[in-house]
């Protein structure tokens, strides 16, 4: 059971990501963020919830849809916006952009725009931990589409074979760009397929932050008792187009859910409802939102004003 105080701190993290992405949506059409943005509206509860539960010292890996992961791990809205605006003060000095945010000092080692490619790398990081007889774990986030790549199965097999301390986190929105799972998969369910491997499996509703956190804790506890990889499968609803700031329900490949369903699928409103039910005053949530909003606005403004990398930066960072 997650207590009220902890739930509120989760709310704080969740709202920060949401407001950061809403700011991107507002700013994007000014054409100053010259980077493709894969927004995660609907998905945040997964990164926020899982990262909240990871023990300190954990390493993380992710995909191009990494904003929530970056902010959940670092809370660093300054670096975040600087990178999106392509500025020198971003974590990648503007060389990375939205799709490759990382913060190795905070354990977020790499995110990749080639689907599935960080999965084996995370397994390698777990191998390094096991090799050194350390107890740290590694978590890797990927979409349901990544499961179609051979490298996913090869990595899961190797990790299970070697009993590596790696947590696979599948963020399943049932879509790869515009293609539904039914158009891409010749098997019935990802969890069922994963059950055939020697790993601990957790399944949950990725729109529900508190249950994400509970599921994560349960699997992490199993991993500690009986060292094997963990696998978390969370479903969620992607509110926006695959890449870019807009909704695209008029494109015809999927229906817009009704308002009640939309509220259930929105992790922020879902958590707000739960917090209200638990007796948290709406003014307390309002205060958290106001604080996050001010932080995001400050960071975005600073980033807009910040300088670009000088030309000499083009050729730095290639070689050690």
């Amino acid at each position, binding site marked *: 059971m997650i207590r009220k105080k902890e739930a509120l701190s989760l709310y704080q993290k969740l709202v920060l990501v949401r407001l950061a992405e809403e700011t991107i949506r507002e700013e*994007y059409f000014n*054409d100053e*963020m*010259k*980077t*493709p*943005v894969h927004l995660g509206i609907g998905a945040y509860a997964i990164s926020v919830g899982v990262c909240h539960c990871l023990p300190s010292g954990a390493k993380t890996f992710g995909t191009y849809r990494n904003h929530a992961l970056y902010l959940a791990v670092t809370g660093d809205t300054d670096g975040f916006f600087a990178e999106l605006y*392509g*500025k020198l003060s971003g974590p*990648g*000095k*503007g*060389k*990375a*952009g*939205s*799709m*490759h945010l990382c913060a190795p000092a905070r354990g977020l080692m790499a995110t*990749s*725009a*080639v*689907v*599935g490619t960080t999965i084996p790398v995370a397994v390698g990081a777990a191998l390094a931990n096991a090799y050194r007889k350390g107890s740290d774990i590694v978590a890797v986030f990927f979409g349901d*589409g*990544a499961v*179609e*790549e*051979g490298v996913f199965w090869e990595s899961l097999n190797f990790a299970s074979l070697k009993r590596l301390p790696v947590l696979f986190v599948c963020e399943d929105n049932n879509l*790869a*760009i*515009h*293609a539904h799972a039914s*158009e*891409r*998969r010749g098997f019935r369910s990802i969890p069922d397929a994963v059950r055939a491997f020697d790993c601990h499996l957790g399944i949950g509703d990725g729109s529900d932050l508190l249950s994400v956190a509970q599921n994560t804790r349960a699997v992490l506890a199993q991993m500690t008792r009986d060292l094997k990889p963990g696998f978390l499968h969370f479903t969620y609803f992607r509110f926006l187009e695959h*890449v*870019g*700031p807009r909704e695209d329900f008029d*494109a*015809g*490949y999927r229906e817009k859910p009704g308002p009640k369903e939309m509220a259930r699928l929105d992790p922020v409103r879902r958590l707000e409802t739960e917090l209200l039910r638990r007796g948290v005053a709406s003014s307390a949530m309002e205060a958290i939102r106001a604080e996050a909003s001010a932080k995001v606005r400050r960071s975005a403004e600073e980033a807009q004003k910040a300088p*670009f*990398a000088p*030309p000499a*930066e*083009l*050729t730095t960072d*290639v070689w050690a």
Partner: protein
Amino acid sequence: MGIKSLMTFRDAVNLALVREMERDPSVFVFGLDVADHKGIFGSTQGLVEKFGRERCFGTPLSEDAMTGVALGAAISGLRPVHVHIRADFLLLAMNQIANMMSTLRYMSGGKLTIPLVVRAVIGRGWGQSAQHSKSLHGMFAHFPGLKVVVPTTPQDGYGLLRASIRDDNPVIFLEHRWLYDISGEVDENETVPLGRAAIRREGDAVTLVCTSWMNVEALKAAEILARRGVEVEIVDVRTVMPLDEETIVGSVNRTRHCIVADYDWIFCGFGAELAAVASQRCFGRLKQPVERLGFAPVPCPTTRPLENLFYPSAPTIIRAVEKLLGLEETDLRGESFYSYEQRFKGPF
């Protein structure tokens, strides 16, 4: 008489697919995103409606396996067109491409035929960064058994794609992202044979040997240089393999100066091949060593100021021409460059 009309590169590629699919029922188009409403920047739009889902379909994210599937279909008499929204994803399929596709005919003693086209998108977009921007034409052409095509004009998008689909060899067909919106005349009856370069512009001062987008940059550079009486000749290579050496050599022998502007990294790139051809075959005629232009020797950065330095462009070409000919630098203030960048918006 051909039917000529003005169309975009995107529509030209689309029309080539339509015409080949109409002509030959063994032609089919598959790959991620080919059958959705966006249809690979519009280039595969309408194919499902015209030809049905058997002949135009999406796939799982499984580049390695799907490339093998294309190969299997090709050696069994079909003519697959396998499409990738980014050439970088072909690196996941390199085993099938470099160990299988390029070798099976040879190892079967010529008994297997591989009529297969792999279309993939290269080049700049809205901050595409290091994993969505590779060209790779030189790498593919390195493997004997693969043909490699880099069209630039709508007519070539149309004509070379039709020729590639009809070719009985595997062809890697690489389309620059920014070309899709460019319009030009397309003669529907004109296919363009593989293995023939085109002289895009005649001139006597320098030969610019260009691939893909570099042709667009070179034309812009030529326009500015012409104002001071420097007429450059532009050779659009069009097919990397087979390479039309004669057109390149003929031009360099006339102008006696050669700059290779390849849309790729310079080191170990196709530009080195072009420079070797010009140097070897025009040795006695060249007045200066062959100059090479290409990407900066770093992974492609996202941020626009560094990305503009990463890519060679019209100003880079102008400076190289001036240097080669010992001319003073043209004042480029007031010139407008990156016109496509101004027009091109995100998010992808």
